[in-house]
């Protein structure tokens, strides 16, 4: 079926994009290039959401991760000083590289094989959910987590302020 092979081509195109981005993130010597790789990955994931008929999530992924989070990471990178003579600048020793790739591969193989041979039953056709339905979903069965997140963000922000700032001297 040509349409099915086209679908596979699109899917694996996205997957390849994501994997290339991820490899770039991990292997790049340069922090900014690594960030670009990360952004590629995030973009590819957004594309996957589109493929799964979840354009809202996909667009949110772009808006939040590409438009905001990676920009903040960029800012953090610009504030740091990169040392060309630090420990991290040396490439990993061969032994460590082998061990690291084994460590990365083992769970991937394990999980991948599990999923391939015991794939859980899934809905074959993804249906697009309306945004209003998503909203109702968040505000009804998941109202408590939804509200907890705001508390959590407040705590995270306050914590960062406490650790980062010196309180001004009281006059």
């Amino acid at each position, binding site marked *: 079926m040509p349409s099915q092979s086209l679908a596979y081509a699109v899917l694996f195109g996205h997957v390849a994009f994501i994997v290339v981005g991820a490899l770039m993130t991990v292997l790049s010597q340069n922090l*900014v*290039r690594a960030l670009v790789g990360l952004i590629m990955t995030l973009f590819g994931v957004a594309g996957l959401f589109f493929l799964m008929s979840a354009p*809202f999530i996909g667009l949110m992924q*772009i*808006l939040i991760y590409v*438009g905001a989070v990676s*920009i*903040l990471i*960029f800012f953090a990178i*610009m504030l740091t000083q990169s040392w060309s003579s630090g420990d991290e600048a040396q490439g990993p020793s061969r032994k460590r590289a082998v061990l690291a790739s084994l460590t990365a591969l083992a769970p991937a193989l394990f999980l991948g094989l599990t999923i391939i041979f015991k794939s859980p039953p899934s809905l074959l056709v993804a249906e697009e959910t309306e945004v209003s339905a998503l909203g109702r979903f968040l505000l009804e069965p998941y109202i408590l987590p939804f509200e907890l997140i705001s508390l959590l963000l407040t705590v995270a922000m306050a914590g960062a302020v406490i650790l980062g700032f010196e309180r001004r001297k009281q006059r």
Partner: protein
Amino acid sequence: MNPPFGIPPELFTILLALGLLAGFVGLNGLVLVYLERKVAGHIQRRPGPFEVGPHGILQPLADALKLVGKQLITPRGADKWLFWTAPIISFAPVFVLFLPIPFGPVLTAMEMDLGLLLILAFAGINVLALCLAGWSSENKWSLLGAARAVAQSVAYEIPLLLAVLAIAFQFGSLNLSTIVSGQGAWPWQWNIMVQPVAFFIYFVCALAETNRAPFDLPEAESELTAGFHTEYSGMGFGIFFLAEYANMIVVCAVATALFLGGWNGPAAPGVWWFLVKVYLLLLVMMWFRWTYPRVRFDQLLNLSWKWLLPLALINLLVTLVLVKI
């Protein structure tokens, strides 16, 4: 119109629209360059470009030819790969941005329910390009420009989203066509009468997001040479330039659709009214540029975090309450 070669009709529409949009963006770039220089000239009581063609009307073409013909230089020490990716990243989202904009009752490249969100999501990519350009140039002015671009865009994106969200709540939709058809023909039936605060916040933030004066700190000529694009020559610079103008059109088009009734007008509704309104807004932007001095960086951030953000939140809250009643 039947699409040739058996292409699916939706795809054909989008391809056709992309082709037309490319022409539109290019043409607009030329027109806006001319307009900008003329407006600047007349505001400063001088005629502006006058030599090439009658009243200098061919000046932008000459500029464009000059830009195309120039040598592309990669500075020594620059990260070559990122350096040349940056202009592409800056320009690529422009096409996506135009897709959901309702130019006329039927003249919409891609009718989609999440159109507004699509524009907001892809508009955020531009700042990434500025960052990459500034960082990869290996030049302190460029880097400073990039740092400013980040702080500025992060600060102004939030009130902008909140202002737009108020409109989305009011209409219960993120589809720009729905929002446009919800407004009437006459100016007092437009959204700007209902949501003046949102319009004000939106427009100020849009100025900042497109790095237009008085918020043009990322490229502040008098301090940073040319900010993030200091090192770009020829079409490298040209693409940034074109992307900036395209972004200006996008924010004005969105403002027109959200607040100024879109293609609605007192007589003969259609694409004309849309373009007239967009160009009026563009002229206002240029007018601002030659009227207000550039703000200081602390003023810029204070304006957003201390005034626009709370104002946008209050506006959103009031909208919510009114919508619920």
